[in-house]
């Protein structure tokens, strides 16, 4: 039995599933001041319904890192970089404690100039004087030669006596090239590290208290999971995992053939995801966090401020829904009418205190000379129209650029959706209004209200590695696994591809994950002859492997 918990902006959903279906589900309000409370409550709600000895795993999707950044509950980070020749790194300063050192490594990983030890020690001193304990060390082409990043880490020292509590090394995030993104990703990782680890400690404690000795995985935005242990050093990967949980949920619940739009209408937001040829689209390089581009892989999702709890407003005769949430719906005891209240008044839903929905909406409508039914109808139409307009805009943006799904690059492919799937609390109630705006076949999958938690429960681990080998230098590197080896002249693409796959699977295995080798996709494999003078000097080999996102099993009806 697998447990899944999705901590959302408004609700925290939990389910227990096995191959026979959903065994239990539970929905509690999210307490933003203490996410662990919500998790614990949801977990207890589930454990009251099932035999806890049957639980094999808990997957958790949490907004903790996202909220920490949005609410600025993050550590000051000492960022020490070295960029060598190229674009001025002043363009990429993420925070005030930023130190740029001379020294450079080139595209083949050759050290062109060493780090300046005097500059390095000045930077370390300045960071210590500022009382910093979290750091990021990022150098250009560190994925080809991590020596300078390691040197910075060593200079920072560890623990007490002014040393670092934590240092993110750029090359350990991913082997992909992109210095500015690597820099931003390392910064955010260190910024949320402390908050995240406190949370991880609390989750571990909570599991012990509940007597649950099972593997805990954390959801990532790319539609996969990582182990709790791994997440402690890479917390940035847990960011924006909520939409991924929903998308994986729909994959588990429904078979999607056509280009489709997936709408997850939650309490605060609606997440729009797009499927092409049955697979969700991904961000090509990585998501943007607070105006910084990063290397955090993610499914392609647009979040807009329309949800069940979105406030209804009326200015100059125009009815709007969202983007703000001004407290709970009247149906939940609030004082401002929301989309949920409008759906209650329109008779589309029967949620919570329906009489209160009507009373509050009537009070709001009267000064404007409107019937509550009129206002409700207009609000529902406005919400559906906004969702449709945003979807159209999102598709236009996607169709302008090459399209990448979780499996592959789709060449010259325009996405033209033929179907809309809706999930989340108000899904059933919003089905017809959405259909009227989109004019496309609109489906609400079974168990739509907990699809996100189902997705969380069933999401498989993902991981990727980049291998880089240079047979002239006789080295092979897999930065993310901190692996460096020696290779002979005979090392070739075939050997490199086999090695990348094997080391990826072994690394997962050592984290307690046994992964079917068939799930490992080789995304890139190339070998170039390097010539020096008129002589073949060696091969320059690059291999990129990825465990494709997927679900442990599906709950589709046969």
């Amino acid at each position, binding site marked *: 039995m697998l447990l899944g918990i999705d901590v959302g902006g408004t609700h925290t959903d939990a389910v227990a599933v096995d191959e026979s279906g959903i065994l239990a589900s539970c929905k509690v309000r999210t307490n933003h001041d203490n996410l662990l409370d919500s998790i614990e409550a949801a977990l207890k709600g589930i454990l009251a319904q099932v035999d806890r000895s049957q639980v094999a795993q808990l997957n958790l999707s949490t907004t903790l890192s996202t909220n920490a950044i949005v609410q600025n509950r993050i550590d000051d980070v000492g960022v020490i970089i070295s960029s060598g020749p190229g674009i*001025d790194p002043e363009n990429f300063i993420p925070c005030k404690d930023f130190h740029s050192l001379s020294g450079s490594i080139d595209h083949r990983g050759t050290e*062109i100039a060493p780090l300046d030890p005097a500059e390095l020690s000045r930077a370390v001193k300045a960071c210590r004087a500022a009382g910093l304990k979290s750091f990021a060390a990022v150098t*250009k082409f560190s994925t080809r030669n991590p020596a300078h990043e390691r040197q910075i880490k060593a200079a920072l020292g560890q623990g007490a006596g002014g040393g670092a509590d934590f240092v993110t090394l750029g090359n350990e995030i991913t082997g992909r090239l992109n210095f500015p993104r690597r820099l931003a990703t390392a910064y955010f990782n260190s910024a949320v590290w402390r908050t995240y680890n406190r949370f991880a400690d609390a989750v571990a404690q909570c599991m012990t208290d509940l007597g649950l000795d099972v593997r805990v995985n954390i959801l990532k935005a790319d539609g996969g999971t990582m182990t709790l242990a791994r997440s402690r050093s890479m917390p940035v990967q847990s960011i924006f995992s909520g939409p991924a949980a929903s998308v994986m949920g729909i994959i588990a619940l429904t078979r999607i053939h056509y280009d489709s739009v997936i709408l997850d209408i939650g309490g605060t937001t609606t997440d729009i995801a797009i499927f092409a040829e049955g697979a969700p689209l991904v961000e090509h390089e990585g998501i943007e966090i607070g105006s910084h581009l990063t290397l955090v892989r993610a499914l392609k999702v647009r979040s807009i401020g329309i949800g069940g709890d979105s406030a209804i407003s009326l200015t100059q005769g125009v009815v709007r829904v969202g983007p703000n949430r001004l407290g709970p719906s009247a149906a939940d005891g609030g004082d401002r009418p929301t989309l949920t209240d409008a759906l209650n008044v329109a008779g589309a839903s029967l949620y919570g205190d329906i009489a209160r929905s009507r009373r509050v909406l009537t009070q709001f409508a009267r000064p404007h000379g409107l019937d509550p039914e009129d206002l409700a109808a207009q609000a529902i139409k406005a919400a559906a129209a906004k969702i449709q307009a945003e979807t159209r805009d999102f598709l236009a943006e996607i169709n302008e650029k090459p399209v990448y799904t979780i499996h592959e690059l789709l060449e010259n492919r325009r996405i033209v959706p033929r179907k809309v799937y809706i999930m989340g609390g108000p899904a059933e109630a919003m089905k017809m209004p959405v259909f009227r705006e989109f004019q496309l076949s609109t489906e609400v999958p079974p168990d739509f209200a907990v699809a996100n938690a189902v997705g969380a429960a069933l999401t498989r681990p993902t991981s990727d590695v980049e291998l880089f080998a240079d047979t002239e230098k006789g080295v092979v590197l897999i930065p993310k696994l901190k692996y460096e080896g020696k290779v002979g002249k005979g090392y070739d693409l075939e050997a490199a591809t086999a090695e990348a796959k094997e080391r990826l699977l072994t690394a997962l295995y050592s984290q307690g994950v046994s992964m079917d080798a068939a799930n490992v996709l080789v995304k890139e494999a190339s070998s170039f002859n390097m010539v020096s003078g008129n002589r073949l000097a060696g091969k320059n080999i690059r291999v990129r492997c990825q465990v494709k996102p997927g679900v442990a099993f599906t709950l589709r009806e046969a």
Partner: protein
Amino acid sequence: MHSARKLGVIFFPAYDWAISPTHPEREERLLYTQDQLQEEGLYDIEGVREYKPDVATREDVERTHFCFPDVDSVSTRSHHISAGGAIRAARLVLEGERDRAFALVRPPGHHAMKVVHGSRGFCNINIEAVMVEWVRENYGRKRIAIVDTDCHHGDGTQDIYWNDPDVLFISLHQDGRTLYPGTGFPLECGGPTARGRTINIPLPPRTSDEGFLMVLDQVIAPILADFKPDLIVNSAGQDNHYSDPITDMNFSAQGYALLTERLNPHVAVLEGGYAIQGALPYVNLGIALALAGVDYSRVREPDFDPARLAQDPKVTDYIKKLCDQIPRIYFDPPTENQDGEVRGEWFVRSKDIYYDTDNINEEQTEMLHLCGQCRGLLRVETKSTANPLSLGLEIPVGACARCQDLGFRQADEAQLKGGFRYVQLIDRVGKQYLRFGF
């Protein structure tokens, strides 16, 4: 991070095409450039975007070249994508999608002449010319300037536009007495109807940034200001670099970026450049940033040493003299015929052309009809060690009815009387490209 100008980059490294495994023109050539551009996050700059190349069609090539025996025999798909990359670059700018475009493509093309029997100087089809002719076919007659900053004389582009007064071709290169292809002297300045529309600036070995920029400011800028082109194309070869293995110049990444900034071409197209590790990643980055209007002051090669590259005063003096003399070629071109003679209504010149890459010898007689009304029908009789005597006829852009008629009559006659194995007719007025003898 924003760019001042919207830049489109078309990157096509042709990772499956090489002349031979250890040839300078091999798969590895743009590998490190790609690494550098990715590591810099070039495409994340707001205003800079990567685009896929178009694929040049056979018709795009036939509009530009006489290929013998046919297009497919002298070019591969990589060549068509490389030329298509250049077309895409021009299309981005002309459609207004981008302000500037950089076709970072290979294989190169500037040694490919009007007639193609094979590969010379690593080039099969002239990618800038295929682009320029595509532009004129789709956007009408335009004034176009091609500034070739490759270290080797752009003899192919010169040959194609020799008789075309609407295309100004300027080549600056290492002096032909010291480097392949051994041509590109100032007195090579265009045919009788386009004299002064070909400008050659042979620079002495070990010319540094100083010399290149002096030529740009004192020769190229005033000529461009007078010519007023609708489109400026830069054949951006990078083998003037101080570390290039097959040339002998002292140009740097900073120099290339400065030159690009001042020339400010609409479209830059990569040509040669074979210091693939030590120069190309930095030169290409510098050119891309300069085109986009982004600060490039920190782009420099690992072994850059301005003192070592300082220009010898003797070289400076020599270039100063060139700068005094060369503008006259454009503003007051010589009237005497340098390389041919008038025979009746025709201007006739004979050429022997060697295709070094494919080891082919060609003998060619080029005849231009001195029409007086239009640019005039072009007739090229050619035979080579690869092909028997063949004929190319071009009714040029804007040709008069008489020249058009003459072109068709000559094509008919050539078929009736025989003697030519292949006959190709380019009719730019009727937009048709005919081949006979197949």
